[in-house]
């Protein structure tokens, strides 16, 4: 997986490419954990993400819990297969998927 991270003042964006699974979720976690102080807009671009498993969902949930307290978080350009994973796990109600 490739992660492209951009930080501009209180805006952070992360563009993910490839597979967000058991192997790669820890990478994303290390990009987020302890690094959201002062961030009020967190944006994920999933245009090039092909795959997500529960390991990836866990990281998104952890990020959402933090952002609920300090700003907002959105997920852009998720493909139909990933949106379906959000649907069946109820994550579509928790996350803001645009």
């Amino acid at each position, binding site marked *: 997986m490739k992660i492209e991270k951009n930080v501009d003042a209180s805006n952070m964006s992360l563009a993910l490419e490839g597979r967000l699974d058991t*192997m790669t979720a820890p990478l994303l976690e290390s990009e987020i954990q302890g690094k959201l102080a002062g961030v009020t807009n967190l944006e994920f671009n999933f245009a090039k993400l092909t795959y997500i*498993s*529960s*390991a990836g969902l866990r990281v998104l949930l952890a990020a959402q819990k933090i952002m609920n307290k300090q700003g907002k978080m959105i997920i852009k350009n998720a493909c139909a*297969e990933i949106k379906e*994973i959000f649907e069946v796990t109820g994550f579509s109600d928790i996350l803001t998927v645009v």
Partner: protein
Amino acid sequence: MQNWVKEIVVDSKFENVRTLTEFVENSLEPLNPSPKAIMQIGVAIDELFSNVVRYSGSDNLKLILNVNEDVLTAKLTFIDEGVEYDPLKKSDPDVTLAAEDRPIGGLGIYLVKKIMDGVEYKRDGRKNVLTVVKKLA
């Protein structure tokens, strides 16, 4: 009638989730499975294999891939020699809870149950045998 079986054995190490996924994807490719079915099978492999690596204590895992080409269905059987564990006994998480009330984790097996067409567990001597079935069309 076209039925075939292939199998692979891998060490119980996280990185082998890739080995298993590629083995299954490459084996199924000639059948032109739907991208959604392939992605969901990949998710099932990720969830089930990572559970074996994390909790079973088994040194390795055997994956048997059975395909019925007539009805375009794949059956994946995961066999490990770890401690007895039936993941299907675990109660489903409440997927209607708000983010704040959601535990981090506990979603993997639930996800597998939702996206596969069938999931079964049996204990066979010293082996855990977990089978998932998925239509490829």
